[in-house]
């Protein structure tokens, strides 16, 4: 361990910096330290789920083992199965074969005034899952607000399936009692790699969700039929378009269709379908020229919602989307985000109008600041509510600092490689000088990266540098 340097973040979570792993792009390790493992216990009637917590922030500041909630779930079966689905996404890698074990990162829980949200992000950085336990799902509101990691160990998950059919379910997130760690021998500690791209994707997926809108809605039975009819694998992205009471699958996009790249990534919806009242599909605006796009698949479970957000391609994570690079590059937006961040108070729905008035922001400034905070892991986006919610990802690392394309663009500016021309710029990159053309339908560049992605993955470093220079 000589090459590693342990640091304890403000939230109590241990970030251990290290050399890059062989074969993995990892900049750090995340050490989960739970006071005791999560357990499922039988009760006289029903069961009790005690979720151990670790790290994060509460409404009164950083906490080592925060306590958020203890109460009965009004509809335990779908909630328990959805928690398992959330945990399964956290333990999955949808691009590699099943022989490759995913790094076992735990789900994150956000507690706000009236609801609990469980979030997880797959190891491949391409699937984000969120379970929203809405006010109706909890017999009492949460005791405190904040965000933390929760332990979903093997034994607990194995027992949770049985608990779901055993009557009432008492859920505790954290414990009111002081958990004695280290000496009692109950501490569970696990280290997992914490690659930048995973962290970045976890944040960025929220900002990408903000650009989506409803595409279609299926009833429970139609949702079951649709999900079960999906092929297990598809080499290229498929598109789902509303057709009567169903969704029709296609290989070419059209307006009002949602991209479904890697249908196997919806596998975790399977066990939840029997509880499903509605399946809603969301996606960004697309047309016949779109090659791929992200999408979100939301199950309405009554008092809960379970949403899977998929990256545009099965082998491509959210971290490379670059959708926010121009926002992140703007120093004014960074300053606005700082002000906005300070005004947030674990809102389950951020009241944009009120904050615009309080902070004196225009709607555009507010939108940019929210996108900035989303990419920084400080707010999430709820598609059903069409609103952001406050949460702070408990990883103790500034997400906005992890955009290599932005760093490269700044480097190009610093090295004087950008020359603005009429309607564009010439950007010298190595031995080649690329031509950037500004246009009303989007800027374009002559570099291979742009030729390959055509702006679908955000601006290339040359376009970004040209825009920075223009400012």
């Amino acid at each position, binding site marked *: 361990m000589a090459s590693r340097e342990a640091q304890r973040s403000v939230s109590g979570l241990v970030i251990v910096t290290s050399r890059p792993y062989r074969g993995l792009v990892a900049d750090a390790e995340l050490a989960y330290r739970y006071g005791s493992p999560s357990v499922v216990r039988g009760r006289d009637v029903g069961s009790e789920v005690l979720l151990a917590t670790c790290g994060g922030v509460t409404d009164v500041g950083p906490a080592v083992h925060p306590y958020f909630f203890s109460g009965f779930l009004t509809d335990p079966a779908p909630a328990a199965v959805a928690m398992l689905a959330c945990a399964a996404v956290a333990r999955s890698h949808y691009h590699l074969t099943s022989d490759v074990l995913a790094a076992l990162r735990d789900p994150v829980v956000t507690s706000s005034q009236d609801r609990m949200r469980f979030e997880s992000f797959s190891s491949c950085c391409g699937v984000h899952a969120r379970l929203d336990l809405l006010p109706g799902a909890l017999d009492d509101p949460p005791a405190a607000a904040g965000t933390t990691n929760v332990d979903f160990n093997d034994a607990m*998950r*194995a*027992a949770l399936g049985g608990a779901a059919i*055993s009557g009432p379910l008492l859920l505790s997130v954290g414990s009111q009692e002081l958990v004695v760690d280290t000496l009692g021998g109950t501490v569970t500690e696990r280290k997992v790699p914490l690659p930048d791209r995973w962290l970045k994707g976890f944040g960025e997926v929220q900002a990408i969700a903000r650009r989506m809108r409803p595409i279609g809605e299926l009833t429970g039975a139609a949702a079951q039929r649709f999900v079960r*009819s999906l*092929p297990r694998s598809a080499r290229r992205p498929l598109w789902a378009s509303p057709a009567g009471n169903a969704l029709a*699958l296609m*290989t070419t996009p059209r307006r009002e269709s949602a991209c479904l790249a890697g249908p196997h990534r919806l596998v975790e919806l399977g066990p939840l379908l029997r509880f499903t009242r509605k399946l809603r599909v969301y996606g960004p605006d697309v047309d016949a020229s779109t090659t791929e796009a992200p999408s979100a698949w939301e199950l309405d479970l009554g008092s809960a919602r379970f949403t899977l957000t998929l990256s545009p391609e099965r082998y491509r994570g959210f971290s490379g989307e670059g959708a926010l690079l121009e926002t992140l590059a703007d120093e004014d937006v960074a300053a606005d985000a700082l002000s906005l961040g300070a005004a947030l108070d674990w809102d389950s729905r951020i009241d944009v109008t009120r904050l615009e008035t309080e902070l004196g922001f225009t709607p555009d400034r507010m939108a940019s600041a929210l996108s900035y905070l989303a990419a920084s892991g400080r707010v999430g986006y709820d598609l059903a509510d069409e609103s952001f919610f406050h949460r702070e990802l408990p990883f103790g690392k500034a997400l906005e600092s992890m955009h290599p394309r932005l760093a490269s663009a700044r480097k190009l500016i610093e090295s004087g490689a950008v020359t603005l021309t009429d309607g564009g710029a010439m950007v010298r990159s190595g031995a080649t000088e690329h031509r950037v053309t500004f246009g009303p339908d989007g800027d374009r560049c002559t570099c291979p990266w742009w030729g390959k992605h055509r702006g679908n993955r955000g601006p290339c470093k040359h376009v970004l540098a040209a825009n920075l220079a223009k400012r």
Partner: protein
Amino acid sequence: MSLDPTLVEAAIRRKDARAVRDLFADATDADRRACAKGLKDLLHGPGIPDYRQMMMSVPRLAYDEHLRPVPPSAELLREVAEHNREVARHQDRLNEQQRAYQEWRKMAASLAFRLAALGVAGGVSAAARALEELSHSFDEAGQDDDLIIAVLADRRPDWLADLIDRHLKQGVLAEWSLARGLVRIGAIARPSVAEYTTLMPHALERGGFPTPERALLADPGLLDDEVWRLFTVPDAGVALETADYRGPENTDQTWSQALARLSAEGYLDRARLIDACLDAFTRDFNPNRVSWYATMLAELDVSVDEMASRQSKYLGLLASTSKTGVTVGQAGASRLLDAGRLDAARLLAASAPALLFPQKSIATAQLKLIDKLIVREPAAKAQATAAVALAFGHDRQDIQEAALALIAKHGVPSGSALDEIRSRVPDLSPALAMQAAALGLSVDQAKPADGDSDEVAELERRVIALPAKSGLAAALSAVRRGEVPGPAEFKPDAGAELPPPITDPDELIHLLSILIEDAGDALSVERALSAAVRLSALPQRQRRLAAAPLLKRAQAVMHGDEPFAGDVIASDIALITWAWAGERLPSAARDDGAGFWSGGGHSDYAVGGTGRALTMAGIFSARAWEAGRMIESGRGGLLLAEPETDRGTISPERLLERVELLARQGEGLRNPFDRDVALLRLAPGATDALWWAWATLDGTTAEAVRDTYLAITTPLRFEPVAGPPVESEIWRLYLDPVLLARTIGPVPVAAGCPSWQLLTRLGDPLADYVALTDIGRYWSNHDEAVAGWSIMCPWQPELAAAHLLRPLSEGLTSRATPATAAIRSLHHRGHALGLVGHLALIVAMSGIDADTRIAAAELWAEASADGRLDPALAAAALSAGADSKLVKLNRVAESMDHAASHSALAARRVVETVCAAPDLIAATPPNLHRLLELVAGLGFSFGVPALPAGLRELGTRRGGARLNITAAQIVNAAEGRPAGQRQAAVQALTALIRRAES
């Protein structure tokens, strides 16, 4: 220095491993570093002889354009002789180096040598290399582990655990004993890598113990931890299963027997063992790799009391993703039920996942379990029958039927249970509506919307506005009677006009930068090609400046995939870019040493050495070759074949303009493939003016040109042909049978269009398969080449479809084909689908790749909506496909199901197609019942046309075969006229009107 390298070297040379270990026993890190320096030469050895020296440039023989060797010159023969002498001298030197290396290798393979390497290793990587060599050598087997453990334990470097983890991950069996030895003496903690657990059963088996039980008792520490890991580590179950499978060869005991005995003897906690087995089914294990745990449970013979205390776990297994896990849960529940110790309400609450489990046997077993529950506990009947209704949502219609039958057997309950069942009835297949209705569980049929009559009135107004000869009055009457009109009589059309040709160099560069990466858009490729020729008149300096950012990438693409070979069009575009920037094009001969050509002299090019297309697949590359030469000349010009519409067609007026322009420029028709494709794309209606202008330019007569044009626009006739490609016995070993189309009757000869001969070489596509497919070029995903085939001859859509059948046929059995691109290229509504087009559609619906099947479903829906889909032709294609035994009806049914979700008309056409295929029904090919099941469901929603006698007869046969049951359901469906039929009728008429209006 207490560690003398000379003593170590001496011990290595006499292969005295024990002495090496003793020498290193007390060495400090400093000693080891010093010793490493002293042994550096010995440990590194003389190095591997560099055989690359032998790879001197060989004098190349020349080939003519037919790839026949040209007789060598005297100078070449002298070069060859000198070359051979030089090779002999090199060989002598290398032999000497090889002898020295072999001797060193022999020594390096000894345990003594490797122990020394381990002893001086400066870090984990060096130690890993030494250990890796040891795991391969074993020339002193037996004493290896102890000495290696001793050398490592003496050092106890801080990277020791990391080293062992790395080696275990490589899955080498011998590493487990080493790891275990180090754990046993406390040199490392128990490794956390999975292989420490998964290798254990096999490693212990190899340890010489008669049974696993004896092996475990010989190392009792394993019972505390390692044994329990077998239940928590993924794939440990597979390792145990493999060991048990192999066990009887070496031992008299399986692992499950051993663990059961150890439990009985008190070495292992029985309760923990049972729990561990049950929990294994709910872990993140591959669901298909957990059957050993069921075997273990069977070996433990779990009692009813033990099961009762774990009722939640057993019932929880009903939600397992593993079939074995669910089966264990069902077996446990069944025993508890027999013993009267099962909580009925909890079983019913837990039943949903098993009732919806994809495999029939699991869902059926759960229905039986509930049946048994009702018999034993009649009080639970209402709740149980309500739970059974969950199976209405099962994918399989036979499971839905079984659920209905169970409800019928025990009687429909009342009150809230009935409400619960009714809420599930919409999940049932429409084909079961009658059975459900018989139980009082009717499904509300959708009633025609009020707007329907308005819609028909609007359609009538449109029909009246059309000329009388459009013949739509009959179709309108049919719709008024509630019948669904047939498809339109269809001819290919020109398509929509493309944007004006590209004349802006920036626009060209923009397009080239995209196409170099992905040339899948065939029309953009054509536009870029023409624009590059047109804009090649710009000054070279201007072109070079504009294209400079693309040159590096263009070069990389050309080096990655050889340009002008007929397959990777992006590489053709890269070379066009290269030429446009003013760079030199290579000479035609592929052995010109310019570095462009990587293959040199292979006979399987689609384009010959002079740039002449050898197969139809090479026609585009040959045109690109011609364009490249024009660009290189820097004189600008035009391509006659530049498409004018999105189907690739050219109007006679535009072609005449181009020909006249060439004439004014004093240019002849010097590009034969451009000329051919221009003729193939020419829309009907050309006048003599075009033929005259053309003849003048081409040095021929107007009659000859017109005759050529008439020949290449003569409709061809095709018939399906299936079988193995019969070129040669060798190819038959590698090629799967294919379903293609061959021309029947005489094919017109077009003397002035050599490309036509390449396109129509379809008289015996099986015999010519190797030549046609250009074997080796289209086995991988060359989507972009195939994407352009349908716009090559837009007025001969059946000919294009016949060629597309090759990749589609390959897509029946292989995933790495451009089958999806092939079927997508038929999407344009102007591309008429004849028998071959429909055959291509059906073959795609049976493709092995889901993408291909979904793309085919999309085409089915689009072709239904625009009137191109003809159920009679689709039926003929379906029959031919099934007859060939290459088209799988289960896949076709799945694809048609996707198609049916698009629109009422697409669904109705599925029903009509199957009903129009009496031969198919009479032949009862495998999986016909899947197709009939789909038709039955769709028939209830969208109506059924006149039924063939064979289907009626099949439906009236007695017996419980799925085929008879589903046929009977279709017969029942034919008696109704559901709302969906009217919807389909309106959509069909709309398609006909749109066609007539356009």
